[in-house]
Structures are given as C-alpha cells and as structure tokens.
C-alpha cells in the first residue's frame, strides 16, 4: 500500500494534468463497462469513442467506427435529416431522450436495421462532445407486437360475438312467422292437400325448427362475450352429475354405461363450465348412439403446470385424426347432416369458454373406435399464486 498520488486514500498532492488524465481514464472505463451501447461524437458528428456494447449492437469493430461520421449508423431514410437534429441538439444542449414519440432505428454493418432507444448527454467541454446512450429494443418491440396482436384477436372475437348475438336475436321473429304461418296454413288447408302437399309443408316446418336450433346455439355462443365471467370454486363432480341427470329422460330406451371418476374442484364460472360438460357429454351420447352399451368415461388428472386435465371419452363412431384441426372451428362438422344432426357450433363454444378460463382444448379420435375430448381448468390453489 503506497501513498502515491491517485491511490485510494492517498494524501499525496496531484498536479492538474494528472488529475485530468485520471478523470478521463475513469470516464472511459465507465463508458466501456456500460450495459448500453455508448457512442460519443464531436460537434461535427464525428465518432470519437465507442464501447464494447456499441460494437456488439451495430456489428462493427471500434477501429471501423472511430473518426467516421455518426450518420453511418443511421438508416438511409433518416440520414438527410440527422445533421439537422444534431444542430438542434447543440443549440440547446441538455441531457434528454432523442425523438420522443418516434420509433428510432439504427443501421448495422450488415445493412439490417435495429430498433433502438437513444438518450443524449452533452459532455461539458468546448469540443461540443455528445454522448449517446443506445439500447437495443428488439425484444421489447417483439413483446409489444405480440400483446397488440392478442388484443386485436380478442377485439375481433368480441365483435364477432356481439354481431352473432344481434343477428341471431333479429332472426327469431321471421322464424317464428315461418313456423306459425305454416301451421296456420296447415289448419287452413286441412283435407285439401294431398300426401305430397303435406310432405312439403312438413319439410318446411322441420327446416324452420332446425334454423331455430341453430340460432339458439349461435345466441349461446355469442353470450359468452357479453356476460361477466365469474371466478369462484366449482364442484366439477356436482356439475357432471347434474348434466347427466338432465340427459336421463332422453336415454330411457338406451343402454348407457357411465364411468365417472371422482372429479376435483376447479375455479371458474359455474354456468359456463356446465355448458362445456353439457356440450361434450351431449356429443358423446350423440355419436355413440349406435353402441350397446354406449360407454362414456369422465375423469380428471392433475397436470401440475396446467391445472386439471379433464377428459370425456366415448366408444362411438370417432373421427379421423387427419381432420382434427377442424373440430373446434365454428360451424365445422366432420359428419354429414344425415348421420348426425347438429350445427357444429358446440365445440367452438367449448373452446371459447375454456380459453376464457385460461385453459386449452384438444381431442383424439379413431374412426369406429370412439373419441376423447380434453380440456384444462385452473385448480383452486394455483390461482392464489397469480
């Protein structure tokens, strides 16, 4: 431990030149070590100092940058205006960010652009030195774009649901008229129609009824967006038992074997979750109509990371996995209308509700063997952490 001038705690005197040299050395080491790219330029815009991070961000070795005009780091379309910006800064030199409100870009050696944020500081010497502190914001911009994309999708989805609602609602009156006037026509022409005539009227009536069912499903689907979603503990076992009980009347003449495991408690909107089960169980029953007995299994497992994974499986006609991507789309059907009635909205609705709960849906199937539908729901303890 010497007592030389400049040593920490030293009491030896320093002359002015030594002091300046040490200040400059300190400044250089601070700049070199900075996590941001640092570029210092003089009044003419010539680069006098860069740090390691600047080399990294712009892809140059510092020897290639020193003494060059700062404009080589500026994309061509901004280059002509840049000297003007610099002059403006020198007219009123003070530490501030550059170009607030504008998106700034730098130009790399390989010709590609990099989105950046720039902070400018005048270095208080007569040379009119300016220190630019530059951050590469590529990652941040990517995250912002993803968030914007998600918001756009959400807005589009909600608009679709609002539109579906208003259309479906307005369609009810004409539908009522079709059904009503057909029946009144039937009463009016009783006895005067032949078999063919009665058959035609019957077809019109049935088409009106099918249209009504479609509209009801569309209305249900669109309601999801319009109603405030509740978040409360949900007893899945109780809901499933209730849904199965509701189906019983129409299963009087069928052999159905229910294999329902003990189901956990989840967190979500009870009404919406009930719709999910009603849809999936209804589908399972529908597509297993030809089976004796129809076997429907409902169980859940804890996936730790994604909460509960609930499965509804049947031994019905199944589906071809090649077309599984279409399953959850609105109005998509994998079976012809003659084989199985239904509008094809149900699964889209299921997916929408599960997505609102932060979960996922998927399906597996094998033609002739049956299908299994999976969806995830948050478990109660996990939401406490968020």
């Amino acid at each position: 431990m010497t007592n030389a001038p400049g040593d920490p705690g030293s009491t030896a005197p320093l002359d002015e030149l030594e002091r300046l040299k040490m200040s400059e050395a300190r400044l250089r080491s601070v700049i070199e070590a900075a996590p941001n790219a640092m570029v210092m330029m003089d009044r003419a815009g010539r680069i006098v100092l860069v740090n390691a991070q600047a080399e990294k961000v712009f892809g140059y070795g510092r020897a290639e940058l020193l003494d060059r005009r700062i404009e080589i780091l500026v994309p061509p379309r901004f280059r002509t205006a840049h000297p003007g910006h610099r002059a403006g800064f020198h007219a009123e030199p003070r530490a501030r960010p550059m170009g607030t409100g504008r998106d700034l870009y730098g130009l790399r050696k390989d010709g590609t652009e990099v989105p950046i944020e720039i902070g400018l500081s005048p270095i208080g010497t007569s040379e009119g030195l300016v220190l630019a502190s530059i951050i590469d914001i590529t990652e941040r911009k990517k995250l912002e774009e993803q968030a914007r994309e998600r918001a756009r999708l959400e807005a589009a989805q909600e608009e679709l649901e609002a539109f579906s609602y208003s259309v479906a609602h307005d369609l009810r009156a004409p539908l009522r008229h079709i059904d009503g006037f057909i029946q009144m026509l039937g009463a009016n022409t009783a006895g005067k129609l032949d078999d063919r005539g009665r058959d035609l009227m019957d077809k019109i009536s049935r088409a009106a009824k099918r249209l009504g069912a479609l509209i009801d499903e569309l209305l249900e689907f669109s309601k999801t967006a319009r109603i405030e979603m509740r978040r409360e503990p949900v007893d899945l076992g109780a809901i499933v038992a209730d849904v199965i009980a509701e189906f019983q009347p129409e299963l009087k003449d069928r052999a159905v074997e229910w294999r329902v495991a003990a189901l956990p408690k989840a967190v979500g909107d009870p009404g919406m979750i009930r719709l999910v089960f009603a849809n999936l169980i209804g589908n399972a029953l529908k597509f297993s109509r030809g089976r004796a007995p129809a076997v429907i299994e409902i169980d859940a497992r804890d996936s730790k990371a994604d909460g509960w994974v609930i499965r509804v499986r049947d031994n019905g006609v199944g589906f071809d996995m090649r077309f599984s991507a279409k399953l959850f789309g609105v109005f998509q059907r994998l079976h012809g209308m003659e084989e199985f009635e239904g509008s094809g909205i149900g699964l889209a609705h299921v997916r929408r509700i599960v997505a609102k709960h932060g979960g996922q849906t998927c399906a597996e199937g094998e033609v002739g063997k049956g299908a299994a539908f999976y969806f995830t729901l948050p478990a109660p303890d996990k939401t406490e952490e968020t």
Partner: protein
Amino acid sequence: MTGPGKILLVEDDPGDAEMTLHVLTREAGITQEVVVARDGAEALDYLKREGAFAGRTSGDPVVVLLDIKLPKLGGIEVLREMKASERLKAVPVVMLTSSREPADVTECHRLGVNAYVVKPVEFEDFRAAVKTVGVFWARLNERPRRP
C-alpha cells in the same frame, strides 16, 4: 258481438301482431275486441285518451300486451308511465317480447309488471303461451268495474 272491455296489443311487427290476434280470437275464446297499437306513443295516447284517441269513451283495457322493442317510445317506457299514473297503474300489463335479457326482466318487474312472457319461436309454444295469457287475463281475472 264482443264482450265488455278490450285488450290492448302493443306490437310493431305485423307478422307477430297477426299471429297473436289469430290465437287470441280463434283459439283462446276471447270475446273482447283486440285493439292494436303500433308504437309506444300510440299506446299511451290510447290509454290516456289523448291525441288521436282524445274522444275515446271506452274503459281501460282488461289487459295490455306489451312488446319491448317499439318505434317512438319503447315498451319499458310505456310500462313506466303506466305504473306512475294513478289511474293506469291498476291496468294489468303483460310483457310479450322476444327479449330474454336479464336486465329487461329485472327492470320490468321492478316497475311492477304483472307478467313477463318471452315470445316462443316455435308456433306450438307461441300458441300455448298467448292462449294461456289471453284466457287468464281476459277471461279468468276479475277486473274492478269502473264507472
């Protein structure tokens, strides 16, 4: 020959009006005349004996069948005015509407509506609903005799 009292049907949709009239007159055995108002303002004029109905001498209707979505003045507004009027608040009002919106159902009951019926899409159900309403309010329900 129609019996005493009238039914006021407030309905802007011609198809719905025709179907309701058909069921009321042909199937519900209603003897009262059914008066149709096409919008909320017309309904109130009729009830208050104002405007085009200034000279009306007949009594209050035995029941008002009220749609919600109406031109000029909506059904809920009509209901509000009726229940705010000393004389009209005793006139039975049955909402007969496509709207199943919880907000509408709640508001109407809050204002004191006598019944809220959602118009079924299937004619069988529509017929049963209108017949029930007509039979109950126009035949079964006793109205005070007004001087």
